[in-house]
């Protein structure tokens, strides 16, 4: 029991994914002289950062035993709103704050649909995914938004002490989420809801409130990552983020978080996101056809879920 507790609250649940990541890096270093350069490592972590930030929210949701399919659409929604406000002459910080708030509001809708209307998370977030994409297309009239002020590019394209800004943001969010999950009551309740919602409710904890907060956070993070992406591309694409929910789910599962809830770590998710990003980057550097890249990604995800299932059985 004590050991279970220790592993449950550790930064990484077990060393499997980390070992996988290290071996992946060693193999790539052997195969391409371009892989293990400072330049490329910064490059790949910057590429990973957007999926990683979404995956933090996804980890919280999956820990409660839920799922959030709407994150990709919320990303486009928030990115478009912030870009639209900026190109309309709004100041930088309010525009970003409103975009983030719009993402959180979408997440709150997810939470309300699940806790108040009793709609299963898969269906509730599927509905919000479709509606948010629709709102985005309405707001943008289907066209990319450009013409933001130059300072906005710092968020996605700038550097702090030589480290890309999105990477700094990603690290701050991961550390904050890790502390929240391991050191706060709220964090422990998230695990409790995923472990056994009924028992948690009977022990006097307001599980609905926990779920509302978790889905709102997931929406907020997805929205924020959408703003980072709009900054990186210096334009907001109405079709941005399509399929990103699947990459985020894959990162969470690869990191060892159980899809049935209650078990998992935030550090594992970081490793999962890195594995997916490095796989993409490495196969790119090795000039592997994009068709096989998709096969490779699919195989890795399936294997990870299979191993997760085996682990629970054994």
């Amino acid at each position, binding site marked *: 029991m004590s050991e279970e507790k220790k592993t449950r609250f550790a930064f990484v649940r077990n060393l499997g994914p980390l070992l996988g990541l290290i071996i992946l890096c060693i193999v790539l270093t052997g195969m391409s002289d*371009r892989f293990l350069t400072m*330049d490329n490592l910064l490059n790949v972590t*910057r*590429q990973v950062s957007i999926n990683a930030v979404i995956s933090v929210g996804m980890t919280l949701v999956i820990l409660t035993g839920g799922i959030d399919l709407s994150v990709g659409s919320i990303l486009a929604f928030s990115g478009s709103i912030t870009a639209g406000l900026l190109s309309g002459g709004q100041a930088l910080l309010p525009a970003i704050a409103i975009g983030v708030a719009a993402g959180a509001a979408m997440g709150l809708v997810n939470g309300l649909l699940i806790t108040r209307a009793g709609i299963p998370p898969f269906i509730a977030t599927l509905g919000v995914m479709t509606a948010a994409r629709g709102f985005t297309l309405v707001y943008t009239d289907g*066209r990319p938004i450009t013409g933001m002020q130059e300072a906005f590019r710092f968020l996605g394209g700038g550097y702090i002490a030589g480290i890309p800004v999105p990477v700094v943001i990603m690290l701050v969010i991961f550390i904050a989420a890790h502390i929240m999950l391991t050191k706060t009551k709220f964090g422990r309740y998230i695990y409790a809801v995923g472990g056994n919602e009924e028992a948690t409710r009977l022990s006097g904890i307001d599980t609905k409130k926990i779920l509302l907060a978790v889905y709102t956070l997931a929406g907020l993070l997805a929205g924020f990552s959408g703003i980072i992406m709009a900054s990186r591309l210096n334009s907001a694409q109405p079709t941005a983020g399509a399929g990103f929910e699947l990459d985020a789910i894959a990162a969470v599962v690869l990191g060892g978080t159980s899809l049935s809830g209650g078990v998992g770590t935030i550090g594992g998710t970081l490793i999962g996101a890195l594995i997916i990003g490095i*796989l993409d980057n490495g196969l790119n550097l090795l000039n592997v056809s*994009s068709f096989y890249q998709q096969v490779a990604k699919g195989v890795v995800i399936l294997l990870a879920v299979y191993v997760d299932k085996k682990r629970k059985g054994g």
Partner: protein
Amino acid sequence: MFQQMRKKSLGIALLLVAAFCFSLLTAGCGGAKKEESKKPVVGLAISTLNNPFFVDLRDGAKAAAAANGLELVVMDAQNDASKQMANIENLIQQKVSVIIINPVDSKAIVPAVEAANKANIPVITVDRSAAGGKVVSAIASDNVAGGKLAGQFMVEKLSGKGKVVELEGIPGASAAVDRGAGFNAAIKAAAGIAVVAKQPADFDRAKGMKVMENILQANPEVNAVFAHNDEMALGALEAIKAAKRTGILVVGFDATADATKAVNEGVLAATVAQKPKEMGKIAIETAKKVMAKESVPATIPVGLELVKK
């Protein structure tokens, strides 16, 4: 217990590596081969390979690269602007000599072009252009002229009057903007022709079909359809067939293999032939000139022709 956990951890790691090696093997171990070759490398960042037009463009570029003694690295963005940005960053990491970009989106590509500029790697765009950054040469079909060809053909076939539908490409893409502009300029010459519906279907066959189905529901009388590419035109044909409507003239753009066949069968009235293979070839030849520090024109229009039965 601890022993057991360690064994499992090792298992996961091994499985991950196995999957990775599997993907490399199936891909013909591209990495090992690359180390040996000392040929100059050209990168081609393509918008999508899920469309025969761009597959043709890649094939044209591949053949020309082989003929010119160049190695070509092709990256597929799967129509995702952020993925294309990552692709181009990865090409910059590989320190290729020239990057040929076929942008997913003309505006979203600008930061990627600027990144290549910063790394002193010359950029050539092909088919679609970039809205900013330093591009040494933009190779594209003269889409305005092509749209005009389609419009003039339609005016002639309809004897100057009728109700026309326009299926637009990805909003904002320069090919969609230019083809639409040329087409609309041509039909404006005939006062009897009215555009009754104008909807984007993103250059996609399935979307073209769906949008056309909806347009047919809304418009009991349609005489002709101009689609900004063949995929949408073929999708529209399916919708027309399913709705059992007849006598609707459909004109596409690109002259892909499917569309040319449909023209020969008399189902598709006409298509405007771009020359994607030629475009790929010209892109490689231009890249070679850039590497040799020869001057190249800022824009290179590639010819078009109307394909009809």
